[in-house]
């Protein structure tokens, strides 16, 4: 009796919190909701009713039209290749670096850590322009591999710091036991350390995958030909051409963000942890 009364008084005192927080949810998700509504209306209905849910029946035609006009069958495949290449590359490169920094006797490990830290806070505009002309010379412009290499270099420092914090927490007994059994350093890394720190690799992979999927500046600089474009670039070009067609762009937006939002909602703990640790950079 007493405790329930206390609880209800507490709930009452939190009511203003809930009201303001709900208004903030409306601000945060309202525009996305409108986009979802408008993807299901034709343009005549959007003109009459730009914000509310569709009232004149569901119009699914925007989706196949957006799929065609946005050239998604090409750009989704390109983005998948670039995201997969980046995630694999980052996990490999950063995993090895983290292992060396955390577990091996590397002279100058502190200086290297400092160097990587400084490198992550350099503005991309400092190296973007010379890098473009270097890449053009090497035939890596308009080449998915060229962009993957750049992304791996850009995102590996963050992943190294993250993975290093996982690896230092592993007691040396595990490695020692494997070494006594005659394992080489590479075998210790791949068969002992990686399996024990896989949640770290999952977090690093999710975050770099998200960044690679959403990345704009380097993609717009290094990819020009339609057949190599990523979803961000084909969407950007598409929005430039069909920006006035609210229904069509809403459907195209949904196609592009659906994989991200579904993955985020199902693995939100890992995403939030990884992004709040590394995301202050971007």
């Amino acid at each position, binding site marked *: 009796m007493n405790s329930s009364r206390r609880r209800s008084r507490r709930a009452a005192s939190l009511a203003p919190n809930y009201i303001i927080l709900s208004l903030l949810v409306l601000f945060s998700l309202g525009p996305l909701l409108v986009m979802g509504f408008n993807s299901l209306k034709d343009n005549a209905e959007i003109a009459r009713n730009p914000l509310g849910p569709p009232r004149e029946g569901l119009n699914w035609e925007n989706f196949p039209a957006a799929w065609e006009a946005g050239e998604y069958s090409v750009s989704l495949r390109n983005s998948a290749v670039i995201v997969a290449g980046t995630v694999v590359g980052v996990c490999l490169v950063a995993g090895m670096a983290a292992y060396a920094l955390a577990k091996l006797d590397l002279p100058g490990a502190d200086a290297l850590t400092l160097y990587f830290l400084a490198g992550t806070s350099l503005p991309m505009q400092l190296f973007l322009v010379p890098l473009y002309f270097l890449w053009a010379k090497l035939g890596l412009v308009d080449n998915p591999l060229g962009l993957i290499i750049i992304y791996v270099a850009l995102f590996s420092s963050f992943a190294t710091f993250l993975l290093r914090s996982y690896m230092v927490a592993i007691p040396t007994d595990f490695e020692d036991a494997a070494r006594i059994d005659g394992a080489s350093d590479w075998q210790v890394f791949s068969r002992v350390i990686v399996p024990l720190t896989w949640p770290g690799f999952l977090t690093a992979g999710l975050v770099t995958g998200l960044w690679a999927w959403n990345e704009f500046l380097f993609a717009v600089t290094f990819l020009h030909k339609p057949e190599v474009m990523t979803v961000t670039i084909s*969407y950007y070009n598409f929005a430039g051409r069909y920006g006035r067609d*609210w229904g069509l762009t809403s459907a195209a937006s949904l196609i592009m963000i659906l994989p991200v939002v579904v993955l985020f909602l199902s693995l939100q703990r890992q995403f939030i942890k990884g992004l709040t640790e590394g995301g202050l950079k971007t």
Partner: protein
Amino acid sequence: MTTQSHRNWKRVLTPWLFIAPILILNVVIILGPSLASVYYSLTDWSGVGRPTWIGLANFERILSDPVYHIALINNLKWTLIFLTVPVAMGLLGAALLAPIERGQMFFRVAYFIPYVIASVVNAQIWRSLLHPLKGIGPWLARHGIPFLNVAFLGKESTALYTVAFIDNWHWWGFLVVVYLAAMQSVSISLYEAARLDGASRWQEFWHVTLPGIRPTLVFTLLMTIIWSFLVFDYIYVLTEGGPAHASEVLATEVFNAAFGRFEVGYAAAVGLTMSLFCAVFVGIFVTLRRRGWEI
């Protein structure tokens, strides 16, 4: 003897083999081109042919270039906006969310979602909403609320602030989550002591919560300053720095100079000044900290 030295050699070499890939990538992608930027900034180069050495002429041009001045001032305005608006919203959201148990996860996720969506999509969502013929403005005007019927992105007086509003819309929720995590690690006994002293909610926030999350708060402010000097995506996608350079920032000026006007040497010089500004702010921060300022 030889196997002994072979083994020693291997023990020294192995760590370097593991760190070699990241080092090589870093040198090729970041360090090398960054140093090349220093050289190009002293040349006149269109991107093809050989660069012509012109000394400090690019930097002299920066001092007198009106577009550079507009861009720099816009970066400073951007910094001020992002040091205040999203930080205040983030603190408000986190402070309101901290005492809540039921639904806390839902609110966190709801605020975070815009942050994981690509900038090009977020920009287009708002461009549609703010469309001068089809957006909310004209719709509200037809229903008797005329004062929002403005081409926010197309007017020189509002373009920069509108882009900042849209960028902030995707960013503030991230700060809620960061500040909430920090607030949850503040010791409960401090709050209990404050309550015993009869502190109001506001006093509690000001004297317990804020000092408790200070390291996180200061770090986000520092990152905000650095990142405000580098902002590119939302401005380029929404206005390309226009109309008439009204929303130009240094990063869009680098991009336009290099890939629009093919003034690669000048672009490198502008990029170099951006790095200098960032370095100065980090330097100020580190010095103040060394001097014993508790920030």
